[in-house]
């Protein structure tokens, strides 16, 4: 049973992959793209889901997939032209199938709302008779399941002699049969004697591929005749089998039990075809299949499923090892008497290997964002229908890999942001035409790696954020004062303010009591941030930046005010000694530092952290990237070095501290805080243009 559940969960994983591919293929096809192979791949996806569903007995899914498959088969064999309208029905069918899979996964037998509608749409475009179409799959399954029970109520039979004759046809050998194996297997049914009849011809006339002999097989058994017949069924296609002894056939009509012999099927050519229209010769359309599917299949065949918990354990262990290694390295440098070069080399090598180990472990956890992205077109389609707006979602960089925990958590904020774009960004079709924009709006969802971070951008070509309305709402709610109007950028930020939602009154789609502040919070939990750029009238773009991994990062250790801190190396551009730099005092008491002909604002970390301006130190400037407002110079006491640090969350034991992304244990056993530079600078007001939205 447990194993069965294992198969099921594997099946569901595969289903989701198949359905994601199906959506891709259907999207492409309904836009007039793709080729024969795209159609084939889409057909196979539906077919595979049906096959799996049949194996596990998900009835609703089976019968729906069956109709879907029949229609896809018509498309595949060019008996149904794929117009845009039909493409849309197929897309909807894909959505329903996804829901059915989800229901099956959750053990629910609820019927998706639009199942009936989509089913009848499918039947209509496929020109199917509703009864045969929906009924086709189910009886097939029931019949085969019931078959073995057909003779269970057989009346008691005495041991008797049954004699069968077996005359192999010309294809007997070449279809993989072997009389010797047959005889051996028949012993299980109490075969007691085999008599050969016929003659072996002269060597000149002898064809080794054709069996010249026939046999008589004598059974002495009490098993029902049907069982023996079932044993012979597999040979029916290529040999003539006759019962020579007379026996009354059992009263129950013989159900064509499996295997359905090829010959038997031949003898009743019209029977099983009714439910399925003649399909094109499959051999014809297959040879075109090339690399597209090749990649997928090789990946499947060489992958290994591992419980996430096991990998997490590995990640933690590697993290602990990094700390131990750092301690070892530090001891070695402190102990100046040690002139043992070999030992130093070994520790260096160990450090490199550990880094590789860590990268490899993180690579195991990495997963492409495709699994989340591929769910999004459906969100946009649903909303298009609901809102009466037309929009297309374009995906880019779906293969960007992110830590699997991040992936799971991304779906919700992304869905919400897309809703937001659809609801507030994209205009209605008439309005768009009036504005001279294309009738169908475009939302782009893209992902890319930048340094140690992943950048996800949602961009739409709608109307942008309506600053007047946002401001009005904010004033109404007392978030800002009317007397000191915020800058346009500050207004844009207000949409992330908790308790701010213009949506509740405006629409039912994004205003379900969840605002963009929830999105921000979620992204923050993942160690990321979320910013917006508004181009009124032209659209808005939301940028999410996320750390690649949540566990280990490269850091630069510095001291300031007698304490050690770690700066994420991804934020650090370079470190300079202040004595080598030109400083310039500005009238407003701020200082600029010159770096390669460019003046950067110098910010004292002591002041930012609220430490006293003590004596000494303050000798280094770390040039850091604020991600949104360019570079600034951070004044610190001293630089200690660069190292990998294992990120330990503060939230688990304390609470979230603004400007601090976590803590780590240094090589000497001390705990150091890891600073979140952009957040910290915004907090201190040190950022020139506060476009950073995470406070």
């Amino acid at each position, binding site marked *: 049973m447990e194993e069965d559940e294992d198969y099921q969960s594997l099946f569901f994983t595969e289903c989701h992959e198949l359905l994601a591919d199906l959506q891709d293929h259907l999207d492409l096809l309904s836009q007039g793209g793709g080729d024969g192979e795209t159609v084939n791949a889409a057909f196979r996806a539906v077919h595979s889901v049906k096959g799996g569903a049949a194996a596990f007995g998900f009835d609703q899914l089976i019968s729906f997939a069956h109709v879907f498959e029949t229609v896809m088969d018509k498309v595949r064999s060019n008996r149904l032209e794929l117009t845009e309208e039909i493409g849309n029905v197929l897309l909807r069918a894909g959505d329903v199938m996804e829901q059915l899979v989800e229901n099956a996964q959750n053990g629910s037998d609820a019927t998706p709302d639009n199942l009936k509608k989509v089913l009848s749409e499918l039947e209509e475009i496929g020109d199917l008779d509703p009864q045969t179409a929906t009924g086709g799959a189910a009886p097939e399954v029931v019949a085969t399941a019931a078959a073995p029970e057909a003779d269970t109520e057989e009346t008691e039979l005495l041991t008797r002699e049954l004699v069968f004759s077996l005359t192999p046809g010309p294809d007997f050998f070449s*279809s993989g049969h072997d009389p010797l*194996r047959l005889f051996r297997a028949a012993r299980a049914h109490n075969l007691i004697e085999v008599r050969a009849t016929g003659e072996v011809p002269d060597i000149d006339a002898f064809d080794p591929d054709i069996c010249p002999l026939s046999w008589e097989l004598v059974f002495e058994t009490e098993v029902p005749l049907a069982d023996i017949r079932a044993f012979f069924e597999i040979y029916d296609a290529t040999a003539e089998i006759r019962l020579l002894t007379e026996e009354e056939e059992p009263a129950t009509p013989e159900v064509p039990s499996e295997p359905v012999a090829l010959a038997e099927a031949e003898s009743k050519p019209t029977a099983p075809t009714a439910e399925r229209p003649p399909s094109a010769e*499959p051999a014809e359309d297959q040879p075109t299949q090339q690399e597209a599917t090749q990649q997928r299949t090789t990946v499947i065949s060489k992958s290994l499923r591992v419980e996430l918990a096991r990998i997490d354990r590995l990640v933690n262990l590697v993290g602990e090892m990094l700390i131990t290694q750092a301690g070892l390295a530090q001891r070695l440098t402190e102990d100046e008497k040690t002139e043992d070069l070999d030992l130093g080399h070994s520790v260096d090598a160990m450090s490199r290997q550990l880094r590789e180990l860590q990268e490899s472990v993180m690579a195991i956890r990495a997963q492409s964002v495709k699994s989340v992205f591929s769910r999004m077109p459906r969100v946009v389609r649903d909303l298009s229908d609901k809102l009466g707006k037309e929009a297309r979602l374009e995906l880019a960089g779906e293969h960007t890999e992110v830590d699997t925990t991040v992936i799971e958590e991304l779906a919700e904020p992304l869905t919400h942001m897309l809703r937001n774009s659809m609801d507030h960004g994209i205009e209605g079709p008439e309005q768009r035409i009036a504005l001279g924009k294309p009738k169908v709006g475009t939302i782009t969802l893209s992902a890319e790696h930048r340094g140690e971070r992943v950048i996800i951008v949602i961009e739409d070509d709608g109307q942008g954020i309506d600053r007047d309305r946002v401001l009005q709402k904010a004033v109404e709610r007392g978030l800002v004062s009317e007397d000191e109007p915020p800058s346009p950028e500050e207004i844009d930020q207000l949409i992330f303010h908790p308790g701010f939602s213009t949506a509740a009154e405006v629409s039912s789609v994004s205003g379900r009591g969840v605002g963009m502040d929830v999105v921000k919070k979620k992204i923050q939990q993942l160690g990321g941030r979320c910013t917006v750029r508004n181009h009124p009238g032209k659209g808005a773009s939301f940028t999410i930046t996320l750390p690649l991994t949540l566990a280990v990062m490269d850091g630069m250790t510095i001291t300031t005010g007698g304490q050690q801190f770690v700066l994420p190396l991804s934020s650090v551009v370079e470190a300079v000694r202040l004595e080598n730099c030109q400083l310039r005092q500005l009238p407003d008491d701020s200082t600029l530092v010159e770096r390669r002909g460019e003046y950067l604002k110098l910010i004292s970390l002591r002041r930012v952290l609220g430490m006293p301006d003590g004596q000494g130190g303050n000798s280094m400037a770390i040039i850091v990237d604020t991600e949104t407002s360019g570079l600034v110079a951070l004044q610190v006491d001293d630089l200690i070095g660069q190292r990998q640090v294992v990120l330990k969350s503060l939230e688990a034991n304390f609470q979230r501290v603004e400007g601090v992304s976590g803590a780590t244990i240094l090589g000497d056993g001390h705990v150091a805080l890891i600073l979140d530079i952009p957040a910290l600078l915004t907090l201190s007001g040190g950022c020139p243009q506060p476009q950073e939205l995470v406070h």
Partner: protein
Amino acid sequence: MSRVLAVDDTRALRNMLADCLKRGGHDVLLASDGVEALEQLREHRPDMVITDLNMPKMNGLEFIEAARKEPAGQSLPMLLLTTETAQELKDRAKQVRATGWLTKPFDPDQILGLVDQLA
């Protein structure tokens, strides 16, 4: 004990079939399409093949047709295991000299019985 090659592009079904065969004490080879199956056939010479029909790259029928031209496949028992029921496919299976046609979902006992009988 026989060496059986199980071919299916759906991982879950492939594993299920493989486990069923292993429980019957058989050695199992795996392939996820006809092309891989042919490679396995040449390299490991199974005693029997159970293959899905609809697969990418090379489907079950094409695979059987190709396998019959290989020394290792000439007289090999090769069963199709599929949800398809169309008559012309069955005819085609006979033409390419498939040993038999089984419908999914399969009955493990039946599969093991057939392996004992044919391999």
